[in-house]
């Protein structure tokens, strides 16, 4: 079997996996590494539930070939928490009622994470633009935007951001 031997860093941990060339990063995360915090749905980069951060950028893991991630840094929702402490984004989602069914939330948070890393002080409109690729059917987005705005302020205050 011609499989691609990959050395992949996920949430700071190195993994050596062997995958068929046409398999997506999502396949590897969920099926090989059993990191099911990253969700699966449309498989055509329309819904955003599979969003992870690769080399600091949000990507739809369903349309990214795993083989293309050789040597790259992947962060998933499981890598966001610092031990038992939630990341400020996660905390803000809890506090602001931004979570309903929760299925879009890992992708939503990872989308927001990459965005806030580049835009520490966004406007509400910019937040809406940033998460437009991640569909949520439960919340109508309002409390998600509230949560991201609150998290951005907290992150700036914590001095983690310029």
């Amino acid at each position, binding site marked *: 079997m*011609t499989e691609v031997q990959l050395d992949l860093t996920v949430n700071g941990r190195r993994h050596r996996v062997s995958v068929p060339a046409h398999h997506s990063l999502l396949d590897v995360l969920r099926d090989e590494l059993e990191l099911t915090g990253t969700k699966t749905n449309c498989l055509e980069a329309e819904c*955003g539930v599979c969003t992870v951060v690769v080399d600091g950028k949000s990507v739809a893991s369903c349309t990214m070939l795993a*083989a*293309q991630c050789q040597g790259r840094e992947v962060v998933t929702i499981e890598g966001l928490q610092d031990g038992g402490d939630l990341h400020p984004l996660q905390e803000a989602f809890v506090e602001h009622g931004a979570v309903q069914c929760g299925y879009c939330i890992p992708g939503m948070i990872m989308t927001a994470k990459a965005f806030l890393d580049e835009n520490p002080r966004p406007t509400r409109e910019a937040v809406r633009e*940033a998460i*437009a690729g991640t569909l949520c059917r439960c919340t109508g987005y309002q409390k998600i935007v509230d949560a991201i705005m609150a998290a951005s302020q907290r992150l700036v205050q914590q001095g983690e951001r310029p």
Partner: protein
Amino acid sequence: MKVEFLEPQSLQDAVAMAKAKGVGARFVAGGTDLVIQMRKTGVLPEAIINLQRLRALGEIKHDADGFSLGALVTHRQIESEDRFLGGLQALRESACVIGGHQVRNVATLGGNLCNASPAADMVPILLCFNADVTLVGSSGSRNIPLAAFIEGPRKTQRAHDEVMTDIRFPKPAGKFASAFLKGGRRRAMEISIVAMAGVVSMSAGGTMTDVRLAMGAAGPKAIRLAQAEKFLEGKVPSKAVLEEAGKLAAAAASPIDDVRASASFRRHLVGVYARRVIELGWNRISEAGNDRSAA
């Protein structure tokens, strides 16, 4: 089904691999189209040739002749490029309406052009800037005007072993502005039902000159609207002038009926957006100072 994964470290390697593997090989850059196609059709290529190690193709360069965008430049790079403010802002406007951040972070300009979707949002503005594409293959390198490169839906002049390396366009002279507008059912995540880009310059006499207008999603491929352009040349954009230009644009459209919109609605929107793009470009020139018009 076994798919070989090849990682050329140089352009020459990439071309050689494609030539060796033949038509069964597919190049991949961002992957946003290829992965979906593979899953939907169940048809896998014999080999996937990853272009992402060719980092030199991921840069936006600028010299006296104009701009050169590497084929691996992502949509996010374009939409956040500071040199694409002012007169070139329609490049940013065209790039930022494609998919979500997740897609734009990886989807490349080269991929967008080589896919040749009639609704590819980057094409109209690049047509306005008279962009050329460079293809490098086993028999050498060639430059083709973008207008000729895309032949029709999903059809281009690229041979299977040719790699698109960059997209170049000259900077228009003088005081000019650009604009891009698109129609779709939502404000994001939309495949355009009509896309319209325009570039307009202001003559010393205060009239429009060097007007360029291109539309996408209203025919088998994006095209320049020569008749409307010619009509607008030397005029001031009065309501009547814009109306007439819109009519000429709509007449040039050859849209289809599909699940997104009817042909007649697309044609109607072509007229509206042609007018509005020119109007918006003109307002931008009028608002901008001389020095701010171009990058």
